[in-house]
């Protein structure tokens, strides 16, 4: 075990993946010598050479197109998109290509080796274009997996599993936690299985569901609620597509209440999907409406980012409202 921050855990996972499997190749804008603007790929070029860790030209559609081709060839590309806000020029390569490669070819060709890493989310004074949480643009795309870790331990285990998973995986990293979140992380190789949610804390009155950086916020909200005597079950979804319906269903059947929270705007956010599914599965168990605590239906603002965010206070209020319904 050693104490790592989230960036170090990512870097460590990449290093392990590259040293164990020479099919793993890392690239993206400024990813090479410089180690990426956040330094997630620091020293990888030194260790594994320029041919396995390198800068690309500044073209996200090119980066993912290139990655798709390399994955088709049997390699395991780990492509970095510098900010999740800049993933959209690659949207066609991801949604029409990566996601449909295996299906359209009858499993003759696939890009299963592909992993796309990208820092996402708010809280770093980034305004419209350094703050977005675009996960729901991808969770609506069959063929992709979408994974988001909440801390260094999770990040390392989930990233190693993503790189080795035989499907294209989009791995969003909560950049607000890159240096802020630290914890004990095993030095060796380990994987956390994809598609499995984690019950972070058991409780009986309400289920609280989130992922990524929002988990920290939810922990704070839960702490407040517990002081009021509300017993919360806190779940980290971890994999958003395909997501672990059963774990959430089991929890909601027990607690009778569900709150889902994410930073992305409410309308069209992934909480809507979860809410719809859970009310289908748990209709007779629900004691109050499933509640969504999310960003506002606006672009991500700058001066009012604090007001925009689904912070612990908003979640705390929503927990109380749900329990008092």
């Amino acid at each position: 075990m050693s104490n790592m921050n989230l960036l170090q855990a990512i870097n460590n996972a990449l290093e392990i993946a590259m040293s164990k499997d020479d099919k793993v190749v890392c690239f993206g804008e400024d990813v090479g010598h410089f180690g990426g603007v956040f330094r997630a790929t620091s020293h990888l070029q030194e260790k594994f050479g320029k041919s396995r860790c390198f800068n690309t030209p500044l073209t996200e559609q090119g980066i993912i197109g290139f990655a798709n081709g390399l994955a088709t060839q049997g390699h395991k590309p780990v492509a970095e998109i510098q900010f999740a806000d800049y993933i959209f020029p690659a949207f066609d390569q991801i949604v029409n290509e990566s996601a449909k490669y295996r299906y359209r070819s009858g499993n003759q060709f696939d890009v299963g080796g592909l992993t796309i890493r990208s820092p996402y989310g708010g809280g770093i004074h980034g305004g419209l274009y350094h703050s977005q949480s675009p996960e729901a643009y991808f969770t609506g795309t069959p063929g992709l997996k979408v994974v988001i870790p909440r801390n260094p331990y999770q990040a390392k285990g989930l990233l190693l599993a993503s790189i080795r998973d035989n499907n294209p995986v989009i791995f969003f990293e909560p950049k607000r936690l890159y240096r802020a979140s630290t914890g004990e992380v095993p030095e060796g190789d380990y994987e956390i299985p994809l598609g499995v949610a984690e019950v972070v804390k058991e409780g009986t009155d309400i289920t609280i569901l989130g992922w990524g950086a929002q988990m920290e916020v939810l922990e704070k909200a839960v702490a407040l609620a517990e002081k009021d005597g509300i017993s919360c079950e806190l779940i980290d979804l971890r994999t958003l597509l395909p997501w672990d319906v059963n774990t959430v269903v089991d929890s909601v059947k027990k607690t009778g209440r569900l709150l889902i929270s994410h930073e992305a705007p409410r309308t069209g956010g992934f909480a809507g999907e979860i809410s719809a599914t859970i009310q289908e599965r748990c209709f007779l168990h629900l004691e109050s409406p499933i509640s969504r605590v999310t960003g506002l239906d606006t672009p991500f603002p700058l001066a009012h980012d604090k007001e925009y965010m689904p912070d612990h206070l908003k979640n705390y209020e929503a927990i109380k409202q749900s329990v008092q319904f």
Partner: protein
Amino acid sequence: MSNSNQPEVRVVHTPTFIDGSDLETPILKILQQDGTLYEGAALPDIDQALALKIYDTFLFIRALDERMVAAQRQGRISFYMTEIGEEAADIGSTAAMASDDLIMAQYREQGALAFRGFPLKQFMHQLFSNENDLGKGRQMPIHYGSRDLNYLTISSPLATQLPQAVGYAYGYKLEQKDNCVICYFGEGAASEGDFHAAINMAGVFKVPVIFFCRNNGYAISTPSSEQFAGDGIAPRAVAYGVKAIRVDGNDVLAVLKATQEARRMAVENNQPVLIEAMTYRLGAHSTSDDPSGYRSKKEEEKWREKDPVQRMKLWLINQGWWSEARDAEELDLKRKNVMAAMKEAEQVPAPSIDELVTDVYDVPPQHLVDQLSELKAHIRKYPDAYPKTAWRLNDE
């Protein structure tokens, strides 16, 4: 300037603009329409066997295209695209490649696949989306693919294969294979951003890739004069560290020669090359299209006189390798084979309903397993409404 990659720069003190007139792109021609070579023309590496294999593929594609357009009119298949007029471009270039070089096609390169040996019945299975289709009946007709023959499954979104070709070729380079990717696309597709990304990355990463542009003058109804204002596609390579050559796309020997040279550069020096083949789509864009709305019969006629198949035939006859009699016989035989294969393929049932949810992921996740079983229960309830699949469920 020190951050330019060109070390020596000419300095001027009055404004000097550059434009298309500063760059000339010659066109390579070897074979004349009468089947004789141009004077001083350099023959490609070709012997009788290769020549006949290419020509055989020409005839096969003519027979296939002709028959399948008719089949679409009869309502037997839903859609088709011919490559009539462009056979020399894709078949002549694929003939220059090693059989384990990857081909990434756009959609009008069935000839390349046929040259690789894709069986006639596999063409038919794909066109009829039946259970023997390697693509499991999921894509529209003409979206062929074959892992065994190193022919990537075709994808409709245009130009997406171009940056993928660079990535695939990078894989060859990493593994130090003596291979090269050939990536086909139309002059219309070359307007997509993916083209730019691909050609720039190929230059930077120095990978063994051939970008093969079929400049056939049209993108559906849009003439190339409304597609770009420059001199075609080849000059674009010049700015990116990629070499380019323009060839007469109806001249199979020129295409073969240029591609052989390009492949050599690509494999030996990791030098990406762009080939622009000037040709013409003699048929409609697809069976959904009627070209009379956007171009003249006269224009078509002019190009029909440059028919690449006829041109090669005359050369073969000049070589003493072929005759008009054999030609008629062979075409007739191919037509019969195509007809027979078609009749067989249309009898083959659709894929099993299970294939609706496989291959979305490597293993179907729970929600897809559930959706499939609900669907099966529904079909069992209304078997008449789902005739393609219900009969099989009853068997289960």
